[in-house]
């Protein structure tokens, strides 16, 4: 099992448990868990409505790809801990990480 934690806009934290080998992005898991994210563009790194801050475990995540980096660069409110959930595959690299929802 892969374990990570989601902090919602109100600061409440909830543990998430996902079996290994599932081909989902973090955005898809957030949507399936009924977090209030729009994910308008469906995972193409276009809309930034799945913007998250990585509070813990950033170093283990795969590096930011070009599409993600280009979009993060244009965002007015991105920080060095910003990622797009749609570009993060749910696998062992997320184990132990803590994500805070950033997008409204």
């Amino acid at each position: 099992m892969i374990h990570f934690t989601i902090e919602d806009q109100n600061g409440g934290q909830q543990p998430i448990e996902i079996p290994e080998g599932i081909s989902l992005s973090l955005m898809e898991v957030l949507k399936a868990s009924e977090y209030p994210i729009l994910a308008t563009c469906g995972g193409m790194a276009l809309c930034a409505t799945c913007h998250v801050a990585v509070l813990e475990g950033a170093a283990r995540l795969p590096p930011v790809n070009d599409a993600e980096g280009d979009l993060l660069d244009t965002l007015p409110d991105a920080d060095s801990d910003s990622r797009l959930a749609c570009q993060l595959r749910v696998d062992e690299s997320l184990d132990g990480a803590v994500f805070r929802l950033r997008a409204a």
Partner: protein
Amino acid sequence: MITTDICIIGAGPVGLFAVFEAGLLKMRCHLIDALPQVGGQLSEIYPQKPIYDIPGFPDVKAQELVDNLMEQINPFHPTFTLGERVENLERQADGSFFITTNEQTVVHCQVVVIAGGLGCFEPRKPEIEGLEAFEGKGVSYMIKNPELLRDRRVVLAGGGDSALDWTVFLANIAKEVTLIHRSDSFRGAPDSAEKVFELASEGRINLILQSNITRVSGNGHLQEITITGKDKTVTTRATDHLIPLFGLTPKLGPIADWGLQIDKSAIQVDTTDYATNVERIYAIGDINTYPGKLKLILCGFHEAALMCQSAFKYVYPSQKLSFKYTTVNGIPTF
């Protein structure tokens, strides 16, 4: 004024195929799209990407699919208004609509079909105190005519390619150019970033890094911006123009105000015929939602076919609809 049977908002693959299905039922279509070309996301975002789940095509490049759709609907002579955004919808006593775009193009139609995909791409606005009050009064989100900035003081905000490119371009035109970026580095376009650092070291532009604009003020027109650094230092700067360049983000736009039932930026429809809660308005493709919705082109095609069967009664109220196969009847052009 343009008169048609069905006005389709959005000229992506699903909007285009709706022309074909409508044409089989002798309904004429006019399409409006905010983008300057047809094809929607396929042409704008990923024209060269292969798509693997169009029935009958093991793989097809996105632009190729759009080109094929245009060929397929050509017998039905659709008309287009491109590069304009739908602003206003006005219902007439007989149930028909007048649709007006931001360029004042008017379309009269019996049925409206929203095939808007992700929505319109609109500039992403930063959260800055007082910003909206100065829109059009010194604050703008895109540069349409750089000549208007000649010999003016201009502040640009952002760190993407367009912020960098415009900084370099305006350095030769404006009286004073200042670029403000929240980080201390630029990821995109290394050439443009290098040029910006070079212009800054030559003193030809002001480059303010690790900072955000936190307030704008003025007297009827923008006069001053407040800049807050990551180190919490606060400074002000006099300027004539502020142009935040934070990319584009898809938004529903004015459609959101048409009284349609909307759930998370998608329009709720009845899966019998993809009708919205407003009579004579349908929504098909990625912009609609219903239990089990899949955002797939092929699902949008199916929705277009069912929608047309339902829309027929508004276009030809006194005629009975009889279902025909193209293999039996061919394509009844008009």
